């Protein structure tokens, strides 16, 4: 009795839900609505289907609808079919599918169809689906035949092809000893698929057309008897539809369907295809397949002229290689990485710059390693669903889904660790919320961290503003120390307290509340001065408070190419609604001197005090900034490798009246790693002591804490001091910094809040604690140590010159050469080159004959440009030492730089490093300039 009631309840609920979801209702929805077990619901649903009250709709998830609902909209297009599972069914394949359905449903027995499309677009599969649809739509019987024949199979024997298709009468030719039925007859009641139909002989074509027009044919050798067959022909060809050959087919076959090639199907669909193939492979091997992000990107972007067929086989190849590595124990997981990809696939990654935005939005909520498991059938990728999700959410979700499939905890951990580790190597600005606490807890008590959480969420609510990582870190570090100080009874003094109170009343009020939270938590009494400091963390731009209104920074865009700069500027100006940015195009035949003169003229038109930001692409243009600054006495900053979004961003900030350094830094900030290049550390005197400055508002809180962290990590015996400094007052801070510069070689400033500081790398607390900042500092200090030892040792050997100055000049020369050639050589190689060049200069200075370079002429022919660039980069050395570096010597240098270069080396860490490995062997170097 209960059973019957329940089943009715399910039915009624379905009818109710159906009104909302016209497509149908899933068991899941019903179980949620009825708060009942899904398995039971499914059982009822199946029963209802059997009693013909409900209809099942194929798909995932399976949907159910009442027979009532379906009847009212029983239009042909509504028949749910296997077509709908195709990738791109609602996008690039929407029209072909619509045509195919029409061709099948056209009364009485469908239209003969010509399928066009390049090799590998999936014509055979599509024909197969048409057959299935014909069955699904009950146009043909359940057991209706689907016969496939490739006309190219016997193309050198046209007679045989015709015999295959149309059949043979006994005695039609020698060897035809009995009547034989053709495929056309065998396909009676169903579909005959003729692939590569253009390979059919003219006679065969004529016979086919006769059948198409009249519905009957004659087997070979048959003169009287006509054979009739009820067959729908689907003919396929790769021929260009414009070709003469196809003209007749298109005229005489009523329906023509063109399947798009892979490159016309867009990245989202390609992504789904790759996804499905990997999924299939994982089912095939019966275990999870992982693929790293770059390999996935390669699959999305490489030239794939043979379309889906090729994509599928290339993926299979990569899976097979990865499987091998896994089986042989080289890898712990079945992980597809660059090394497993066929060479032509790897090249795909080199197109990333063209599609970066699209790829990023496509993969934005994916980790650096993607996972495909044979069991998990959840369709993870739906092109229409897009959204930014935090790393944490992704991990959480993965965790849940992995648990659902009953994977054991250890394995889940391992999997998530892969995700997490690779995520860590990503850019710092993406530092996810979940990790920040781990990091901060290395140096700050958990209670302090939690309090900061509370304070910032309070402030965010009250001030209607969000606070970034830097503030979080800064405040946490600050609070840790100041709580200690207050507990110890140390005095806290804020010299600008009254100014802060007056000009930031809102923030001050919030800081008062924050102080109460702190007091309650730690049992202290926060003094008013400390509340002044807390206020400063909550102010939007602590240093903007007293700045005068600045003149707008002029923005020049200078690019190689006839109209590159103009078109970028046009976009930027249009979007911002100004004409602020000024383009200067540099056609390839224009020499750098000419464009420099043009730029100089433009800059001179500006108001006297305006500063200038140059946005350039590459090459000699990157040096214009310094030259312009020298010639005009203005402040000029250059940002290279500029893309349109950068132009827009810089232009917007300039129009808003932001300070030149602020704009420059914000651009640089996006590319933290590449810019923190050890080779760019300025040359220093060896006896000078190195120093790292740590900063915070007080100079005693976070700055002290950061000092502890750095000192603990510095290599033993390194010649480096850490000096804490307060940044409460910007002028005082800059003055103190200047003084330090007199005595120390300052390597970097590490702090909680960034203050404009000329020419010094800034490392934020978050960067430092995440490891990247520390690594940078260690690298720089090690290198400085090495060079000071080289200088000491050279002193014994090079007597005629000041070895200290010599080594510094040579180092600078090396940096210049690296920049001119747009490459980098490893640090160890650089040491060798320093020595080589030092002795070279000494030798030339002494007037000793140059060393001959074997086969100089041949070498020069291939490296003329590089040699000229090196010569130019060493002009200053030649001048200062009054020497001439000959072609022989240039050739040696050229070889050292070009052969030792770290490939793909203009970039920094991260993805570019992966590039480096990639570009090593079997891929061409990208052409620069």
């Amino acid at each position, binding site marked *: 009795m209960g059973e019957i009631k329940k089943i009715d309840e399910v039915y009624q609920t379905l009818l109710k839900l159906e009104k909302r979801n016209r497509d149908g209702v899933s068991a899941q929805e019903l179980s949620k609505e009825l708060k009942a077990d899904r398995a039971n619901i499914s059982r009822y649903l199946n029963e209802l289907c059997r009693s013909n009250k409900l209809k099942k709709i194929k798909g995932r998830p399976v949907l159910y609808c009442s027979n009532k609902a379906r009847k009212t909209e029983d239009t042909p297009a509504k028949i749910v079919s296997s077509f709908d599972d195709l990738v791109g069914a609602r996008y690039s394949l929407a029209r072909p599918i619509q045509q195919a359905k029409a061709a099948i449903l056209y009364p009485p027995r469908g239209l003969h169809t010509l399928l066009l499309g390049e090799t590998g677009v999936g014509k055979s599969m599509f024909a197969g689906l048409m057959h299935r649809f014909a069955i699904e739509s009950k146009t043909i019987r359940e057991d209706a035949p689907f016969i496939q024949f490739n006309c190219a199979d016997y193309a050198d024997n046209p007679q045989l092809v015709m015999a295959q298709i149309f059949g043979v009468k006994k005695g039609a030719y020698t060897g035809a000893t009995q009547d034989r039925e053709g495929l056309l007859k065998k396909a009676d009641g169903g579909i005959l698929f003729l692939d590569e139909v253009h390979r059919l002989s003219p006679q065969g074509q004529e016979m086919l057309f006769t059948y198409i027009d009249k519905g009957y044919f004659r087997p070979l050798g048959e003169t009287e008897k006509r054979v009739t067959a009820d067959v729908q022909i689907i003919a396929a060809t790769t021929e260009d539809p414009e070709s003469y050959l196809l003209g007749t087919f298109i005229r005489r076959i009523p329906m023509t369907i063109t399947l798009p090639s892979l490159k016309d199907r867009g990245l989202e669909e390609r992504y789904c295809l790759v996804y499905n193939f990997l999924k299939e492979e994982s089912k095939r091997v019966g275990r999870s397949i992982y693929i790293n992000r770059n390999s996935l990107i390669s699959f999305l972007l490489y030239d794939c002229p043979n379309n889906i067929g090729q994509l599928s086989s290339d993926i299979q190849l990569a899976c097979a290689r990865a499987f091998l590595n896994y089986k042989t124990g080289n890898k712990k997981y079945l992980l597809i990485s660059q090394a497993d990809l066929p060479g032509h696939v790897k090249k795909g990654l080199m197109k990333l710059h063209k599609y970066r935005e699209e790829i990023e939005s496509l993969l934005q909520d994916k980790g650096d390693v993607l996972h495909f498991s044979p069991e998990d059938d959840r369709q993870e990728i739906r092109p229409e669903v897009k959204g930014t999700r935090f790393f944490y959410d992704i991990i959480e979700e993965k965790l849940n889904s992995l648990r659902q499939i009953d994977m054991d905890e250890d394995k889940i951990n391992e999997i998530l660790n892969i995700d997490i580790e690779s995520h860590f190597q990503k850019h710092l600005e993406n530092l996810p919320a979940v990790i920040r606490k781990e990091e901060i807890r290395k140096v700050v008590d958990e209670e302090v961290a939690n309090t900061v959480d509370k304070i910032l969420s309070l402030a965010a609510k009250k001030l209607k503003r969000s606070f970034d990582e830097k503030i979080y870190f800064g405040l946490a570090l600050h609070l840790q120390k100041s709580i200690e100080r207050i507990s110890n009874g140390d005095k806290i003094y804020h010299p600008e307290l009254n100014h802060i109170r007056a000009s930031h009343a809102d923030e001050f009020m919030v800081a008062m509340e924050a102080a109460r939270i702190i007091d309650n938590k730690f049992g202290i009494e926060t003094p008013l001065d400390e509340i002044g400091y807390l206020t400063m963390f909550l102010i939007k731009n602590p240093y903007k408070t007293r700045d005068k209104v600045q003149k707008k920074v002029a923005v020049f865009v200078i690019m190689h190419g006839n109209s590159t700069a103009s078109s970028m500027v046009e976009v930027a100006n249009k979007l911002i609604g100004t004409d602020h940015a000024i383009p200067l195009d540099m056609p390839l035949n224009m020499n750098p001197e000419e464009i420099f003169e043009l730029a100089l003229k433009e800059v001179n038109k500006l108001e006297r005090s305006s500063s200038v930001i140059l946005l350039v692409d590459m090459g000699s243009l990157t040096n214009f900034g310094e030259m312009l600054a020298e010639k005009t006495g203005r402040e000029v900053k250059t940002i290279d490798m500029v893309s349109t979004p950068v132009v827009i961003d810089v232009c917007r900030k300039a129009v808003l009246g932001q300070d030149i350094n602020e704009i420059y830094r914000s651009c640089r900030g996006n590319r933290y790693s590449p810019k923190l290049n050890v080779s760019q550390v300025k040359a220093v005197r060896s006896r000078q002591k190195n120093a790292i400055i740590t900063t915070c508002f007080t100079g005693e809180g976070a700055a002290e804490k950061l000092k502890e962290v750095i000192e603990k990590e510095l290599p033993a015996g390194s010649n480096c001091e850490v000096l804490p400094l307060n940044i409460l007052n910007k002028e005082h801070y800059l003055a103190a910094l200047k003084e330090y510069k007199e005595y120390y070689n300052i390597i970097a400033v590490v702090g909680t809040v960034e203050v404009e500081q000329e020419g010094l790398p800034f490392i934020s607390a978050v960067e430092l604690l995440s490891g990247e900042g520390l690594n940078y500092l260690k690298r720089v200090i090690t290198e400085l140590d090495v060079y000071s030892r080289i200088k000491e040792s050279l002193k014994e050997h090079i007597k005629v010159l000041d070895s200290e100055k010599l080594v510094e000049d040579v180092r600078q020369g090396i940096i210049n050469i690296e920049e001119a050639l747009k490459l980098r050589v490893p*640090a160890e190689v650089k040491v060798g080159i320093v020595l080589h060049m030092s002795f070279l200069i000494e*030798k030339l200075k002494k007037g000793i004959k140059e060393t001959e370079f074997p086969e100089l002429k041949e070498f020069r022919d291939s490296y003329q440009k590089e040699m000229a660039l090196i010569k130019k980069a060493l002009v200053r050395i030649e001048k200062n030492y009054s020497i001439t570096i000959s072609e022989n010597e240039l050739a040696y240098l050229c070889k050292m730089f070009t052969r030792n270069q770290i490939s793909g080396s203009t970039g920094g860490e991260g993805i570019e490093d992966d590039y480096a490995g990639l570009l090593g062997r079997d891929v061409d170097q990208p052409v620069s300039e």
Partner: protein
Amino acid sequence: MKTIMLVCSAGMSTSLLVNKIKAIVSKKGLEVNIIAASEAEAKSYQGRIDVLLLGPQVKFLLKKMEDLMTPQGTKVAVINSLSYGTLDGEAVLKQALELL
């Protein structure tokens, strides 16, 4: 008698290092022969040397030299850059002897 060869691009900076090592070798009375060569000359020594050390600036020769020399039993390596940069004959000799 073992032979150690140092190679740099033009044979210029290594010759100094070779002289330093030679001095150490004779002082210690070691049975070791030290020579310096340029890239071009190096090939002609194929099969006649026990250790070949490359200046860091010609690191790019490593693969080529290994292919050429290793089958003849020669050990090939790049000189530690700090030892090279400070022209530390003692350290370079040690590196070479450890390879033997």
